[in-house]
């Protein structure tokens, strides 16, 4: 077959373009944490029964599948049962899964199972809840998050809207939970004594239950004529309780919290009639799972592990400055999705509607 010079050139150009395009494609598809070694991965949840967990799980899966070396992805839900969570871990290891990402809800109780899997040569990355132990001894790496940063971010915002100080009400989950205590430490590292916490030390206990939150807030509203800012680490649980201010003829105060679609929409609907209702949110941190998956995949496939071992939840919405984002509301989608997550709103909707 004879090929003219022009045809040769065209062919050459075309193959170069194709090669370039292909290399670009592979580059975009293969992040640095993804190595060449084939591996299987499993995500093990201690408790998978709420929308936050479902969005987080879907995020972890999406992250793992970015790496072409991952041959299979498995998921197990411990259903809040420590025994089941332990046997899930052991079963996944026995099945020959190479890398395990674990949400150890039961804390220290999970350490023996995690350690035994690590000792048998698997990659295991607990995240978000500490199980105790040490990286390199009991597990490959722990990927925590940084609630003190959340506290500091809230504190800085409170200072910006209330420079002269004021009354703060801080609500968190179950009594003595470490997340709430860390957040308080972050808050106090930024705020001086002119900011008065009017809740009982260290925070008002809500168990993150919307009904209890409503009761607690009822009592606090009646007791305190002046509440300048409410700080809460689970914004969406406040949605049912905030109208209590309107019922007692007061404006909803400023709110420093974590994001959620229902909260964003609530703000959008109520900000006109409530002049003091300013909203500031940090990310609800569904993407914490992504960092943990990156670590697990990197260690299992021979990729380059991420530099960070702690997920720092970014600031998400600020109704005052609109930076980094104005308050977001997708009224057409369920209230239980988190627009701060990397996973698209539509995919989140799919994730929470699967069951």
């Amino acid at each position: 077959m004879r090929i003219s010079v022009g045809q040769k050139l065209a062919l050459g150009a075309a193959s170069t373009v194709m090669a370039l395009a292909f290399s670009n494609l592979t580059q975009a598809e293969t992040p640095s944490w993804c190595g060449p070694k084939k591996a299987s991965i499993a995500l093990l949840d201690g408790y998978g029964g709420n929308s936050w967990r479902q969005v987080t799980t879907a995020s972890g899966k999406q992250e793992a599948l970015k790496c072409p070396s991952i041959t299979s992805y498995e998921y197990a839900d411990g259903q809040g049962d420590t025994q089941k969570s332990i046997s899930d871990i052991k079963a996944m290891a026995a099945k020959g899964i190479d890398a395990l990402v674990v949400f150890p809800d039961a804390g220290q109780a999970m350490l023996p199972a995690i350690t035994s899997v690590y000792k048998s040569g698997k990659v295991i990355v607990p995240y978000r809840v500490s199980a105790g132990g040490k990286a390199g001894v009991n597990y490959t790496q722990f990927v925590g998050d940084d609630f003190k940063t959340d506290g500091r971010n809230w504190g800085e915002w409170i200072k910006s809207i209330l420079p002269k100080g004021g009354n703060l009400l801080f609500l968190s989950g179950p009594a003595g939970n470490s997340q709430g205590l860390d957040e308080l430490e972050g808050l106090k590292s930024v705020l001086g004594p002119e900011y008065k916490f009017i809740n009982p030390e260290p925070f008002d206990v809500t168990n993150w239950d919307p009904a209890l939150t409503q009761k607690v807030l009822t009592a606090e509203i009646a007791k305190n004529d002046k509440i300048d800012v409410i700080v809460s680490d689970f914004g969406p649980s406040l949605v049912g309780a905030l109208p209590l201010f309107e019922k007692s003829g007061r404006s909803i105060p400023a709110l420093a919290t974590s994001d959620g679609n229902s909260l964003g929409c609530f703000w959008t609907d109520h900000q006109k009639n409530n002049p003091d209702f300013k909203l500031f949110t940090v990310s609800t941190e569904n993407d914490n799972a992504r960092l943990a998956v990156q670590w697990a995949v990197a260690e299992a496939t021979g990729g380059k592990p991420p530099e960070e071992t702690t997920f720092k939840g970014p600031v998400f919405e600020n109704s005052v400055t609109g930076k980094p984002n104005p308050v977001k509301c997708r009224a057409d989608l369920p209230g239980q999705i988190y627009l701060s997550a990397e996973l698209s709103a539509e995919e989140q909707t799919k994730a929470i509607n699967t069951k």
Partner: protein
Amino acid sequence: MKSTDETRWSRPLSRQGFHVPLAREFVTVVLSTIALVVICRLVAPSSVTYGSLAGSLPFAAIIAIVGLGQLLVVQQGGFDLSLAGGVSLAVVISTHYPQGDNALLLPAVVLAIACAILAGLANGILVSFFRLNAIVATIGVNALLYGGVFAVSGGVPKTTTTLLAAIAGGQALGLPNTVYFALATLLVVSFILKKTVAGRRFEAIGANPLAARAVGLRVRLHQLLAYVYAQLLYCMAGVLLAGVTREPTAFQGDSLLLPSVAVVVLGGTSLLGGRGFPISTVIAAFFLNQLSQFALAVGVPYSAQTIIQALALGFGIGVYSVRWTVNVVRQPRQLEGR
């Protein structure tokens, strides 16, 4: 206990109806509640302001409704632990099925009622026909109901429809709508229990099933129906709760089980069965709710709040062990048995 109940049956119905408001149980719970309100006024005045009451009464109303359901079962000497599952199932059906669409709310409520009837029948048949221990049977049914909760919701909360939020969360004449629901339930339960033949038989069977059987009453049927009525009331409480909390969790019923038993006991109904005190039960629900608002309003740490509640509850129940001379004078013969 039982001997007193039996002497009561011997009295004419009209006299009995006349004396109900003077029952020791009623006086006790009313006095305890008044005492609590006075203490609230003195120690934590914010807990008895209009705003505080408007915010907390819906929860008192819901406790009252589940309490009335539990009361009917306790009257038959039973115990219903499937309350948590029943309430949670009603919550998730009334939020998940409509998916925010008001038009689907009515079918959702009908579906929730159908499930409640089925659950009540399951409990009732297990307890009254198969003679299973009530605690064992209702724990089993509770597990089934939670299976239903997961099947419907996957454990995920959904936002309430605007219509339900307006009905359950709204106010009329300055009172939360839930309070009217609770009062209506109280009226119906009291009227049927105290003024209808079926109701009188129901109480008689609870007081002494063997005697009731001997006189030809349909003991098993009434015992079975107690569980069905109870589930219907749990269902109602669940639907209201879904409206009161905008984004209820799928396990909202869990925290109601203990209060439901507490208000029945505080209301003066014997756990051995027999005579029931619906009005006292509803007042006890207010008492219990006000107690937790008081503990919150005092502003003490969470641990102390829990202790205050436990102590006051212990006191409330302990009051029944004190002999009441006032009533003994009023009704010397009837109360000696106690």
